[in-house]
């Protein structure tokens, strides 16, 4: 195996990659245009009128959830660090049980468009919606920045665009297409983009996996041996600890990350918002079941693809290539399927960024228009047409912001932002959602304490962690103001938000709104009075 393989994909096939990706864009734009109702109702724009079926929404959920980081990042981490890369996958998947058992059906029955609908249901509307919108916007922005910055790296790798200006042009193009999806398609169009993308992604990884298994005579053991012999860590890649096992601190960091992953998924606003695109709670339940099915296939495939990349391409070649770890899956695709398969994998990776960013933009715009504009500024008396107009304007603003952010963050190591978004979701949102759903005494003051303490502690702890300063991999290398040793704040910020939510509740004299609590419980379990899809 020579370096030619590392060089080849980033030179000879850029035209083909562009053509395949262009085809995806044209097809999705057409679909978005066809399904768009061009209506201006809030239900259409935010929730596609609640007309998707459980299986459709389940596939779209997996599309929203499986970002380019999951696809390229996990396969790459497995190829280089072996087993430790697989640990991510497990957290990401198990997390969906929280959605299945505790969230999906209740959220569908109680709310209508946003996470704020659920949290503010039996609380004082304005402060709780403000908190909920703040957390939604922060999470969406972190998550989006990571995706957009990744787009630049991916462009360099797959389209052979190496100049910063050229990459900026591609980031602008990605941003504009994404804004178009959201503006024209609303939730309906965005959902179809997710369905198309998720189907492509799943087919792609499943086919490569079957091929790899076939190549090694369906002996996983043989595949693992070959991977180990082509990785400098040898048999170490079959055991945990290659990445996180260095010292006690890194082990603790791993536990912290795992907590944030498993508890974060159920607090991601763009995931919660998907539950409103189905007509009732039973379809919401089916959505999660389909999503779990799709993601089981995906994560098991990435494990095989990661080890397969180590076995067939070799870890050294992967690390020496332009995209480092992220290049593992594309290089493997080139190795097993030549330029055509590489083109398809490249297009799928691009489509993934495009679709995930569209989903986030829609969520951010919905939260601002519905929670902030309609319920805080207009005190719930907004004209729906005006509300949708605000949502569309917000989508444009968010799109511009993410383009600018993406260009500025291009080349920076901002992958930690995804983990941070999960930590904020697990800290600020999960605690308050769980209390709100299952603890009668919980009140407005508890909600605010829980949300803001989780949000602030996560962001502050990351700011004073080695991620930002004081280490060789920090954003600011020259200075050192880090005093928090872990790169992921979850281990501390999640308990903080649960404790603050509890204290904020029992220390305030505010009584529970019994009528609203009764209504919320009946509605959560039976769907009686649930907002449907007019």
């Amino acid at each position, binding site marked *: 195996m020579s370096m030619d393989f590392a060089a080849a994909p980033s030179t000879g096939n850029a035209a083909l990659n562009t053509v395949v990706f262009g085809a995806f864009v044209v097809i999705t734009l057409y679909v978005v245009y066809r399904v768009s109702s061009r209506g201006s109702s809030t239900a259409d724009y935010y929730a596609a009128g609640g007309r998707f079926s459980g299986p459709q929404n389940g596939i779209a959920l997996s599309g929203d959830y499986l970002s380019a980081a999951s696809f390229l990042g996990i396969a790459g981490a497995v190829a280089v660090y072996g087993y430790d890369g697989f640990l991510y996958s497990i*957290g990401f998947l198990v997390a969906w049980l929280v959605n299945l*058992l505790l969230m999906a059906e209740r959220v569908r029955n109680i709310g209508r468009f946003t996470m704020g609908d659920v949290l503010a249901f039996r609380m004082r509307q304005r402060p709780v919606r403000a908190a909920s919108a703040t957390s939604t916007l922060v999470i969406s922005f972190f998550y989006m920045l990571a995706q957009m910055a990744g787009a630049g790296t991916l462009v360099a790798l797959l389209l052979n665009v190496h100049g910063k200006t050229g990459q900026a042009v591609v980031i602008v193009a990605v941003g504009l297409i994404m804004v178009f999806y959201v503006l024209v398609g609303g939730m309906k169009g965005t959902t179809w983009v997710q369905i198309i993308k998720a189907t492509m992604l799943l087919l792609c990884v499943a086919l490569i996996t079957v091929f790899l298994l076939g190549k090694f005579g369906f002996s996983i*053991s043989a595949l693992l041996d070959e991977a180990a012999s082509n990785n400098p860590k040898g048999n170490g890649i*079959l055991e*945990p600890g290659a990445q996180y096992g260095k010292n006690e601190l890194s082990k603790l960091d791993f536990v912290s990350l795992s907590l944030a992953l498993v508890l974060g998924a159920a607090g991601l606003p763009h995931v919660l918002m998907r539950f409103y695109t189905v007509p009732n709670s039973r379809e919401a339940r089916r959505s999660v079941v389909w999503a779990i099915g799709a993601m*089981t296939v995906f994560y098991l495939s990435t494990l095989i693809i990661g080890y397969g990349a180590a076995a067939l391409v070799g870890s050294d070649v992967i690390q020496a290539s332009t995209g480092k770890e992220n290049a593992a899956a594309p290089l493997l695709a080139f190795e097993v399927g030549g330029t055509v398969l590489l083109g398809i994998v490249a297009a799928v990776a691009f489509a993934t960024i495009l679709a995930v960013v569209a989903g986030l933009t829609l969520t951010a715009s919905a939260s601002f228009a*519905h929670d902030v504009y309609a319920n805080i500024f207009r005190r719930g008396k907004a004209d729906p047409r005006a509300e949708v107009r605000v949502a569309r304007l917000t989508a444009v603003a968010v799109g511009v912001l993410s383009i600018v952010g993406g260009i500025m963050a291009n080349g920076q190591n901002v992958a930690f932002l995804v983990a941070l978004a999960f930590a904020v979701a697990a800290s600020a949102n999960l605690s308050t959602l769980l209390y709100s759903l299952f603890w009668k005494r919980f009140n407005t003051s508890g909600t605010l304490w829980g949300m803001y303490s989780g949000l602030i502690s996560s962001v502050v702890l990351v700011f004073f962690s080695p991620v930002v300063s004081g280490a060789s991999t920090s954003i600011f290398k020259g200075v050192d103001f880090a005093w928090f040793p872990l790169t992921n704040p979850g281990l501390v910020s999640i308990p903080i938000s649960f404790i603050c939510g509890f204290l904020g509740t029992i220390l305030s004299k505010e009584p529970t709104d019994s009528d609203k609590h009764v209504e919320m419980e009946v509605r959560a*379990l039976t769907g009686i009075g649930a907002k449907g899809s007019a």
Partner: protein
Amino acid sequence: MTEVARSTTAARSFGVETYESSFGGFEHPRESLPNREIDYAKIYASDDFKELRSSARRFILPMSLLFFLWYLTYVLLAAYARDFMSQRVVGSITVALLLGVLQFVSTIVITVLYLRFARKHLDPRVEAIRKTAGVADK
């Protein structure tokens, strides 16, 4: 795409609470049923609802605790019991790999168990309560 339109009838039955301004529900006032108060307190106090509530909690809360502790055990083993996790089971397949895949298996098992539980114990009760309350079924 044919399924898209399928739920409009179901949707109509949700319009029991007509336009509540705080949710901006003015879009299709004609599709909503006449304004009818739902007596949530009465439903809440009914035996049917109490049964539904306790039955749901009896399944959901222990099951959530179970999968969370099982996941935590796995994470702590991966972090602190490296020797145990590095043992070979068959060929080059390690205990770690096996336990990791077992997390996938347990996730699927819990999903299937919950689906069966919900179909058998939750959905019929919900339907009965909705019927008593005079709300068309979902």
